[in-house]
């Protein structure tokens, strides 16, 4: 069977779900023409009136989706780049995340906000960012960040079926880089469940998005040096799968957390805290974080961009030193 890219897995899943449920509609900038990454290619023609171009106003895209979801439809909003979602921070933080809570379940919001995140595409400061830490900090919104095409497919279906707001993060560098035969059976991904992608006894690497792929490449290289790594693909950041994370940490006693965001207060900080709090007695080394430097955002020039981003070499280097601890 032919291999499917991440972007095609997303596009075809949207198409299938829209055909199954006429309450689903798409809203976002340029989505009628297929979107800047082509995630909605051909859908406006196939589903007339259900793919809606929005004005350039992100708070509006999310706020309008909230209203439509409250009414009982199933909006799927696209924020063109995750870097622009912060205009909608208020609608997500003050409204969407609390809708069910503040009504004690009297109302809820079945909505999905899809957005491309992450660096490695020469996107400079405002087309490269990792935004997950801000939004995973909001109880009431689920945050999903898959890595493989098949998981994009299962988790997008799950996000659409979920009665709660789901922020669906798509790593833009992986859109056409990562391919997979969708028939390949890794077990259906579920929201709130991480996956052990590779098993090894020397240390655990925890990652998501592009960094998961870089971590797998590093683990492959390290295996040839005799260092065996467990690699955990988090898949969902909120609600987080504590069990899988802690099991892997306890089994290997050493954990390297890799994320693309700036280091301080990034999502990896929460992972490190959980491991320190609940697996301290099992650790043979301090939990190590590998992330971007604490500068405002990823710079444009490729030399500085490469400097900013963790990659397989940096991961392997960090893993070696951790293994030797």
């Amino acid at each position, binding site marked *: 069977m032919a291999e499917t890219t991440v972007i095609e897995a997303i596009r075809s899943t949207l198409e299938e779900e829209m055909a199954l449920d006429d309450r689903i*509609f798409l809203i976002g900038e340029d989505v009628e023409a297929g979107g800047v990454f082509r995630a909605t290619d051909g859908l406006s023609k196939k589903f007339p*009136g*259900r793919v*809606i171009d*929005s*004005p350039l*106003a992100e*708070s*509006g895209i*999310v*706020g*309008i*989706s*909230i*209203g*439509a*979801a*409250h*009414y*009982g*439809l199933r*909006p799927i909003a696209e924020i063109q780049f995750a870097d622009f979602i912060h*205009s909608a921070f*208020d*609608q997500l933080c*003050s*409204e969407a995340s*609390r*809708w*069910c*809570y*503040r*009504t*004690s*379940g*009297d*109302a*809820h919001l079945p909505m999905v906000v899809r957005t491309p995140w992450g660096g490695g595409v020469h996107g400079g400061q405002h087309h490269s960012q990792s935004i997950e830490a801000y939004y995973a900090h909001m*109880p*009431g919104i*689920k945050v999903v960040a898959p890595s493989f095409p098949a998981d994009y497919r299962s988790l997008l279906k799950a996000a659409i*079926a*979920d*009665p*709660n707001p789901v922020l669906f993060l798509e790593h833009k560098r992986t859109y056409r880089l990562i391919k997979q035969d969708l028939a390949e059976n890794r077990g259906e991904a579920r929201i709130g469940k991480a996956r052990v992608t590779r098993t090894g006894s020397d240390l655990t690497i925890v990652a998501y998005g592009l960094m998961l792929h870089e971590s797998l490449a590093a683990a492959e290289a390290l295996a040839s040096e005799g260092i065996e790594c467990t690699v955990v693909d988090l898949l969902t950041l909120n609600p987080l799968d504590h069990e899988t994370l802690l099991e892997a940490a306890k089994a290997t006693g050493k954990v390297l957390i890799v994320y693309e965001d700036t280091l301080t207060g990034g999502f990896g900080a929460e992972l490190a805290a959980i491991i320190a709090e609940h697996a301290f007695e099992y650790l043979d080394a301090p939990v190590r974080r590998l992330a971007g430097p604490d500068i405002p955002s990823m710079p444009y020039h490729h030399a500085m961009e490469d400097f900013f981003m963790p990659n397989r070499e940096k991961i392997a280097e960090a893993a070696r030193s951790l293994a030797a601890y």
Partner: protein
Amino acid sequence: MGRSGFERIGIHVPTISPVRCANIAQVAAAVTTRARKPRSHDTVSDYLLNEQQLEDMYYHMILARRLNERMLALNRQGRAPFVIAGAGQEAAQVGAAMALTKGVDYVAPYYRDLGMNLVLGMTPREAMLNLLGKRDDPNSHGRQMPSHWGNTARKVVTQSSVVTTQFLHAAGIGLAAKLRNDPIVVLTSCGEGSTAKGDFHEALNFAAIHKLPVIFFVENNGYAISESTEKEMPVPHVADRGRGYGLRGQVVDGMDAIAVYQTVKPAADQARRGGGPFLIEAKCYRLWPHSSDDDDSRYRPKSELEEWAKKDPIKVFRERVVSDSIFPPEDLDEIEQRVDQEVRDAAQWALMQPDPEPEDALGFVYKELG
């Protein structure tokens, strides 16, 4: 009620479907207009209020005011931590809500809209549960500050303390209704200070582009806490901003409940039929401080307040229906006595209702699947 005011002043009232109208000057024209014109057109007669509606209007306005007064008393007695009221805006709220179809049309109100919620079905007891944050408050079960409304069955959309976010929710509901071909209208409200927020502009723009059935209802009460309107906007009327977005803007006397009804009702009917959104600005006045924690003597001249108190919408309504001989004063006194009794009962009853358990804080973060 007693004898019809029209009969009392010698106007013939048909025995079937009587037309009883507040504005006596319009009565003769209205009766003949109704006879001549088909119902499918908006005519003045479609927007006249009958005696029962006028009674309801007065009842809800006075109920809102008396509830607010009792709430403030409970606050001063130390029994309610916070009160935010709508005194001076009852005509705008009641007039607008009466123009909607209860339980069908959606309303995304703001925190001063007690009067609007009462028309839509909130009981005095529920209003008091809400004030006290009681377990059984249908709005938020003690999770939100008082006057943060929400009731899914009544189509009242939950709101936060962040102003104007609800304008976008209303646009989204309007979009959904349009996609489903449902003939409903959404009314969302805010104060004039809130119109400076970006969400106001994003909502108006989107609703106008897609001709959504939304009424953006601005209750211009002259103040955003301490800031008077000239500090909030450089134009005299919020309604003028409608033109910039390609939607119709209209100013109405927000101290006149009948005028508000007769402005919102045709707009709602048109919007429901696909006529697109409206921006209606009801000019009213905040007769009380911003909240129970505010001291308005620091920023508001007493003379101004006294001038506006003369235009108190409840007082004006009463004088008008009495001078137009629609209701004798004793009938209105009777309504007020009934309201006083209901408000007393509601406060006493609500104070004895159970509080939330501490652990109730943990529930409903997510809606369960299935």
